[in-house]
């Protein structure tokens, strides 16, 4: 196994802040929406924590954005420009998760510093980080002070439209927060990717001949 530096410190800070922040937002969001069913804390406390964590994660998002915009690490988010290759790689990856993994096939994705996402992750994270997360933040800020942003709320079609989008994304992220760590446990050991997101170093298999698999991206 070779150790390669894949997750720089700003990314790791962003990731864990985002992870625990999203868990806090989901829990307080559930408390706010289902106050008649759940009693983790008072409604008002849940709203206060939800607002504070929301602002923290908006700031955290700009840490992520600034890091990738001003370093060459943005290459990990470069899309695959060949649709055929992207489709083929996505199919192979889905086939691995849905079939190959059960009979011990090797992961078709070979990780490197500039190619850390497999084809499915690449597409998913493009959508999540450039569309869904910003949309969740925008709708959250509008709901935070509806009077101040009354014009924007009206532009988007009214408070119920804004809230419905916010809740739909909350539902998506709730499912994501369970599935993401499970997929992260599918490394060469169950804890390998978790340790890597703490140390920054991923362990990768050597290619035949002793060299690591080369970056395909």
């Amino acid at each position: 196994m070779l150790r390669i530096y894949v997750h720089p410190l700003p990314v790791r800070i962003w990731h864990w802040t985002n992870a625990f922040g999203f868990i806090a937002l989901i829990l307080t969001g559930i408390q706010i929406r289902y106050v008649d069913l759940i009693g983790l804390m008072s409604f008002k406390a849940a709203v206060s924590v939800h607002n504070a964590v929301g602002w923290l994660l908006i700031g955290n998002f700009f840490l992520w954005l600034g890091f990738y915009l001003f370093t060459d690490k943005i290459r990990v988010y470069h899309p695959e420009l060949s649709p055929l290759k992207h489709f083929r790689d996505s199919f192979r990856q889905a086939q691995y998760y849905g079939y190959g993994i059960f009979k011990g096939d090797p992961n078709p994705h070979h990780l490197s510093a500039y190619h850390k996402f497999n084809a499915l992750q690449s597409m998913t994270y493009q959508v999540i980080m450039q569309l869904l997360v910003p949309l969740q933040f925008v709708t959250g800020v509008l709901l935070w002070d509806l009077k101040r942003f009354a014009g924007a709320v009206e532009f988007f079609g009214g408070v119920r439209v804004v809230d419905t989008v916010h809740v739909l994304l909350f539902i998506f992220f709730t499912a994501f927060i369970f599935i993401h760590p499970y997929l992260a446990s599918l490394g060469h050991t169950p804890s390998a990717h978790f340790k890597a997101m703490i140390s920054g170093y991923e362990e990768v298999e050597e290619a035949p001949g002793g060299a690591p698999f080369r970056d395909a991206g």
Partner: protein
Amino acid sequence: MSVAPASGALSDGDNACLGCHGQEGLSKTFGKGEALPLRVDAAAFEGSVHAPLGCTACHSDVDLKAHPGAGKAFDSVRAYAVAKATVCQQCHEDAFKQHEGSVHARRMREGSALAPTCTGCHGAHGVTPKTAYQTCVGCHSAALAAHQKWLPNAALHHEAVSCAACHAPAALRMVDLRLHDPATKTWAVEKPGKPWFEKLARSVDADGNGLDARELRDLLKRINPEGTAAPKTFRGRIELRTNVEAHRLSDKAGAIRACDGCHRDGAEPFRNVTVSVTGPDGRPLRHAAQQEILSSASAVASLPEFYAIGGTRNTLLDVLFVLALLAGVGFPLGHLAVRWLLRKYRA
């Protein structure tokens, strides 16, 4: 001194009173030297809800043979206003009883000179159906700033929740969906002599059991024919089911502060729903609606501008949330289970 012109909308008797009481400068001096202006704004009285009753309905104690005379002596304008509240009580007995249990009445009994009498909130001769908010902030001008210290979205709460909905804690509340005109950015008002809303609402609500989600959509389509540039929408407010109960106001220690009194599924205010339009005299013209219209999936289109966390929770989104939870937990567990069952093939 000029004599006020007679109003065509008032009776001859009322115009006779206004012949003198419409004049500037007329006043009465009380024992402590305070002067009470006796001028009545004829236009304000004509526009008041009491105009059809005439002057004598409230001033039956005036003996025209001895008028103007010394009348009953009062020490101050305040003492006069307190005494005249019994006149209001003659017709508004229910409201008066409620008021007796209010913080305003208690302060008055304690001798506060600031506690309002009936006319303190409603005015004397220009009584109109003002909103509670306008009335309350007339004295409690710092109310918004005080609420902003602890209440999230305080300005929105002040706009969408009547003061009495929280400050009359024993009162029953409701959601009133009032028709709003985006072109004028005010409540849509039914023009005098051209009633349409109640008739239209009754025709849409053919079964007479209150508007359901489909009937609300039909009503909106009828109000906003295809091609309407700025469609009118219903905006919700939390109000009291009967304004009589708005008189039993508590002090702030007794007011409702618990958010989940409203922000929960099935909360009391959301069990009673009406749709309304502002009538020509400012009072709402209401038609009953079913509470399901607040939480139906179609409310995104029919009630885009009214949403209260918990109270208007959409059932379809609740189902999606449960499915997402099941998928989020079920996919990893299912995948893990299959991996475990097939572990010997991997070896």
